[in-house]
């Protein structure tokens, strides 16, 4: 009886020690769920979700303090991905959420710019270069289109320019049902299908 008790408590102590040790040794820094949510968010750092950046919003979602439908730049696609990740139902944008806009980049009218550096301080991704009393300019490739630089500008010289589609960003459309009215082959597949039937 005593031996059994001793053996059992020894095993319990040993396992407890192993568990305690691994809890310290293999400790996961931060919440992995936050990183997963953050990876889905578009990283515009625009604050339209009412949180100061994508990471804080991700933390709020992970803590259950924020809804998943508060990110306009992520679009409905983003909500869908978040819903998938968190095992929730898809939720359309609420009425209080900011409207979705086409992806744009900021542009500084360099003739009007007075070099006040306010926009440089507002930019969350350091995409504006310039110095005090020097002209500023936006590095378009790094601009996320968050619009945070627009409001602070005292001379209203920043405008948002929607990105135009170029050949390198152009996408093939989802195949539409064929239009019998147009005789012109609008895709190679139509042609392909045709040469098959004309043999």
């Amino acid at each position, binding site marked *: 009886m005593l031996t059994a008790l001793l053996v059992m408590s020894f095993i319990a102590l040993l396992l407890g020690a192993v568990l305690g040790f691994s809890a310290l040794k293999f400790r996961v820094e931060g919440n992995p769920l936050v990183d997963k949510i953050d990876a889905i968010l*578009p990283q515009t750092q625009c604050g339209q979700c009412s949180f100061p950046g994508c990471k804080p919003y991700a933390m709020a979602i992970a803590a259950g303090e924020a809804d998943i439908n508060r990110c306009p730049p992520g679009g409905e696609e983003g909500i869908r991905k978040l819903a998938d990740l968190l095992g929730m139902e898809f939720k359309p944008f609420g009425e209080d959420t900011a409207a979705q806009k086409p992806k744009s980049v900021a542009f500084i009218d360099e003739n009007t710019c007075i070099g006040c550096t306010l926009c440089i301080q507002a930019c969350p991704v350091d995409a504006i270069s310039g110095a005090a009393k020097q002209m500023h300019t936006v590095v378009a490739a790094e601009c996320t289109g968050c619009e945070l630089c627009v409001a602070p500008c005292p001379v209203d010289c920043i405008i948002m320019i929607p990105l135009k589609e170029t050949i390198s960003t152009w996408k093939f459309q989802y195949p539409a049902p064929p239009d019998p009215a147009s005789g012109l082959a609008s895709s190679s597949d*139509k042609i392909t299908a045709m040469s098959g039937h004309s043999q």
Partner: protein
Amino acid sequence: MRTLYHFNGGVHPPTHKAQSTQTPIMQAGLPSRLVVPLHQHAGNSAKPAVQVGDHVLKGQLFGMPEGSVSSAVHAPTSGTVTAIDMQVVAHPSGLPDLCVTLLPDGRDEWITRVSTDYLQTNPAELRQLLRLAGVVGLGGAVFPSDLKLRPGTQKIKALVLNGAECEPYITCDDMLMRERADEIVRGAEMMRHILEAGEVLIGIEDNKPAAIAAMRAAVSANSLNTMEVVVVPTIYPGGGAKQLIRVLTGIEVAAGVRSTDLGVQCFNVATAYSAHRAIEHGEPLISRIVTLTGNVQQAQNFEVLIGTPVNELVALAGAKADTNGYIMGGPMMGVPLPSDQVTVTKATNCIIASSPALFPPPPPSMPCIRCTRCVEVCPAELQPQDLYWFAKAKNFGKAQEFNLFDCIECGACSYMCPSNIPLVQYYRFAKSEIWANEREKDAANLARERHEYHLLRIEREKQEKAEKLAQKEKAAAAAKAAATTGTDAKTIEALRAQVREIARPASEHPKE
């Protein structure tokens, strides 16, 4: 007799090749204007090297290669540059791209052309020469040839020269082999030299007896015993690079693997011809053979200057009245041109005038019944019906799992589909969506990184400021203490100076 291998599937569409091989290659001549796109190759667009108003000579550089994957672009004739602007190019999107417009002066005056002795030049220099001569793959992929001529991890056993030309209607390689076999063979020998390849295998489909005879004659005339013309069976898409490599050598090139790492490389016959022109004659790639066929009076092959407008070109062949559009490439893989104002590029191997009679609108597509006829014909051994299912449902991750990117978009599946489903359209849609997602993801990662650095910087600045303030307070306290305990005036002065010193940089650098 060489043992040939097989690839899975393949189809036998009607070839329609006879109509454009009746007459020899004709010179298309000088058009009224030439619009030369600066992005005619895979990789980065070339950087403009001329200015509006410049008078240029034939073969003068229009665009310098930019970055490692890029190629040069040249003036197709002598004349004046009238514009460097965005113009609609031969691309299914119908979107504009940067082009150089040249007004020919009619003199067709060459730059000084320098011939290079390839045996006396080291391969790296020859590769650079080909890069600056704008030599790219003329089979359709327009990948810079100099990059494909870089040796891989293995010694190249076989250099495959692709003269299969499996797609219906297209005969530009056939005619080039018939008429200029000698230069193709010499170009191939140069490529073999650069790659230090063991042998050259020229694969030609058995429906081109004239080309086979001409190439065989050229090989024996040049007494090249490392080169062999191999006749391969006619089957679509036997001219796909991977398929031809498989047929000739038995090697299967997996997705994402460089074929040079497997000891084999493949070039189109026209690319070998251009390489020869560039090395032996110092002529950059400024023209190519284009098949003009379909709904025209006289189907024929033309040697066309890059940048020639399609409408001026089809006028030479006489498009019939009911022509309702033009297809660039063949009927299986080609793309409809957005307008007849666009110009010929290095990728334009064929222009087919289409008409409702030639290509009537397809019957409506029916649901997929999973008959797997597409599986039987798929040369990449994919499951087209599953790829269709996932692409249709926009389930792109799953489509990638089923190796969507191994699809060569040959169209054999759509050709066979009894339900007339435009399968390749779905694959193209899925591929471009996946690419767009990846671009977005890259942009998001960059923004995340920059934002994190931004926060770090602000935190660091805050800390520095706090430290400075603490130091200042400490010094002030010390000065006060010294004054109250009656330390001599000298020490107080020293401490005051210290305080000023600490305070000074802060006042000189106001908050940015």
